[in-house]
């Protein structure tokens, strides 16, 4: 049951990305280009998502188990530190450079777009570099 739900939610999220226009880097860059002809569509994507999300998370915060009986894994980190800010700034630079963020890139790869696949492979390489750097950092501090 859980596996079916996870697959279905992935599918629904992918459809949302496609319908919203997020899987089109041209659309994303049109939103990020404040100084050019600005396309505000993505603000409505975020607005619509957060409107529904607020209801869902308000309900989720009151529960100790999920409706399918899974443990609730709500984030516990609270610290606003250099890692969070520098990491997010780095992510934004990559987002602005290509117009892809992780979800839309995976969906566009699923649609068979070669540049999306190249982006995903590079993104995974970046994530593996993070794991490598973290391992080195842990080894130094031990």
């Amino acid at each position, binding site marked *: 049951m859980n596996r079916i739900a996870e697959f279905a939610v992935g599918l629904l999220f992918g459809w949302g990305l496609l319908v919203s226009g997020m899987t089109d880097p041209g659309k994303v860059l049109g939103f990020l280009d404040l100084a050019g002809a600005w396309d505000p569509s993505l603000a409505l*994507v975020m607005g619509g998502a957060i409107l529904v999300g607020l209801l869902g998370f308000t309900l989720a915060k009151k529960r100790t188990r999920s409706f399918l009986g899974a443990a609730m894994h709500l984030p516990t*980190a609270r610290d606003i530190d250099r890692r*969070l800010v520098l990491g997010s700034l780095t992510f934004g630079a990559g987002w602005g450079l290509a117009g892809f963020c992780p979800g839309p890139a995976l969906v566009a790869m699923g649609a068979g777009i070669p540049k999306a696949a190249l982006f995903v492979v590079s993104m995974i390489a970046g994530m593996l570099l993070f794991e490598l750097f973290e391992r080195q950092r842990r080894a130094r501090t031990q």
Partner: protein
Amino acid sequence: MTIDWVNFTPWSALAGGILLGLASAAFILLNGRVLGISGILGGLLVPRRSDASWRVFFLMGLLVAPVTLALLAPTLIATPRIEANNAAIVAAGLLVGLGTRYGSGCTSGHGVCGLSRLSPRSMVATLAFMASGFLTVYVIRHLI
């Protein structure tokens, strides 16, 4: 600032956003997980993890989304326009991979779920990656 009315698609944006919100709400309420793509994918790259299967099932759903929606409602899918050349794509992918892991999230985990949880940490992250995205596009399109 001038508004690009020709490319402005308020209804599909809102409808797509609502689907993203529904999926995020369903994930926390049914599976007890925050729907964050970079975290779900990144968690697969760490060895010794026994929780790989839910990540794989979620990602499979994401990957088959275009094929299934193309069968159900092909007119809803816009053709992607990709301006970046291959070198820029590789650089962007590396930055997104590194940045989302250091920053513990991306547009979905921080932007949608984090803001829906009213998390101050996610608000800071979202402001940071949006500002950096705006600045990067400004430099590429208007300065270089």
